[in-house]
């Protein structure tokens, strides 16, 4: 099982039947492929849809029905469309149960940085700030370290924040870490063949070890 699959499978276990979920591009989107049995979720796409379905067949593809990345998709029975103001009303108003996003950095106070690297790349925040501010539960799904092997989980984010104190759970290829209310990180679960020491070494902030520390439940 590769890193992406480990993360996606574990994230999927966070979903409960009936949840309205907004998934970021990349690993978060994969999570929808691994829903636990009996769990149905409704995908919100911030460009204006609830009940987003799979990618559209090429002969059905239209620019009038796309996902937030601009890719032609479908809508499932029971879905509906709305404009951007309503879409972010749903997001900001707490009508999205969970959002899963990638991160450049996330820190011990639940702060998240995922939208810009000063002097390098400023693509804009798109809908990320509203999603992280408004969704009832914010889950970060990412590789535990960056391409240089440096920790992405820090005591304090150095990059400009997306939102302050909103992350509840961090799911990586190595571990599941929860953020305590008021701050502080708790190591909750370990990926297969990963040790507590390895996670501590690759994390840039102190980790409390949960008394219920367990293996990630990602069996097929």
């Amino acid at each position, binding site marked *: 099982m590769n890193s992406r699959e480990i993360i996606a499978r574990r994230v999927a276990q966070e979903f409960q039947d009936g949840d309205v979920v907004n998934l970021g591009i990349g690993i978060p989107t994969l999570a929808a492929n691994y829903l636990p049995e009996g769990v149905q979720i409704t995908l919100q796409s911030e460009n204006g849809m609830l009940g987003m379905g799979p990618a559209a067949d090429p002969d059905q593809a239209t620019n009038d029905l796309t996902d937030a990345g601009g890719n032609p998709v479908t809508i499932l029975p029971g879905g509906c*469309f709305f404009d951007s103001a309503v879409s972010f009303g749903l997001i*900001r108003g707490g009508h999205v149960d969970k959002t899963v996003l990638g991160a450049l950095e996330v820190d011990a106070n639940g702060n998240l940085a995922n939208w810009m690297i000063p002097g390098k790349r400023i693509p804009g925040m798109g809908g990320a*700030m*509203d999603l992280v501010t408004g969704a009832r539960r914010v889950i970060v799904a990412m590789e535990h370290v960056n391409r240089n092997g440096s920790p992405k989980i820090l005591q304090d984010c150095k990059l*400009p*924040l997306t939102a*302050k104190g909103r992350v509840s759970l961090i799911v990586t290829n190595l571990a599941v870490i929860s953020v305590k209310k008021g701050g502080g990180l708790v190591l909750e679960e370990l990926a297969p063949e990963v040790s507590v020491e390895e996670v501590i070494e690759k994390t840039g902030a102190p980790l409390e070890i949960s008394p219920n520390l367990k293996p990630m439940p990602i069996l097929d």
Partner: protein
Amino acid sequence: MKNKVFSAQEAVARVKDGDHIMVGGFLQGGTPDVTVRELIRQGKKNLTVTSNDTGREGCAVYDLVFAGHVDRVIADYIGLNPKTGQMMIENPDSVQLFPQGTLAEKIRAGGFGLGGILTPTGVGTIVEQGKEKITIDDKEYLLELALRADVAMIRAHIADEAGNLVIRGTARNFNVVMAFAADYVIAEVDEIVPIGELDPNHVTIPGTLIDAVVKGG
């Protein structure tokens, strides 16, 4: 009743150099490409453009920025238009970024006669720079001000001759709020039908907001 159906050339002729133009759409979804390309053809310049993203390759608004017709951009995401990114690096003041939900509310406020709205989005981030913060019941909000433009260019599926618009799918995006927020509104559509053919329950945007209806490509 006045005729509202015009050619793109006629409709765009009323745009002036230096105008602030809101362009509907989300990447390539629901974009008024024929109308925006007419801005290029007519050589309008020094424009300010408000757009979710200033497009991606293949979009008219992407080409508008690349061809140098735009001095200033207001958007929430510009990651797929490197020219807008370059503008921002060369002159940070030429590109203003807002969170997507904030941008939608700012435009809606402009069109709905509100002075602004209080949003929690951006509190504790660089987005709060230069903005008033207001605390209500121990929660902080940013005061984000209304945004209006001289012109809105929007896209819909069907228009009737009174300008009533039906939009389908995810193409509503910014098109709906922008229709309220400009002095002159051009709607580009796939199809134009006589008055009375649309179910009044299915109209996405009231025709009274629309000044010109243009047949799209």
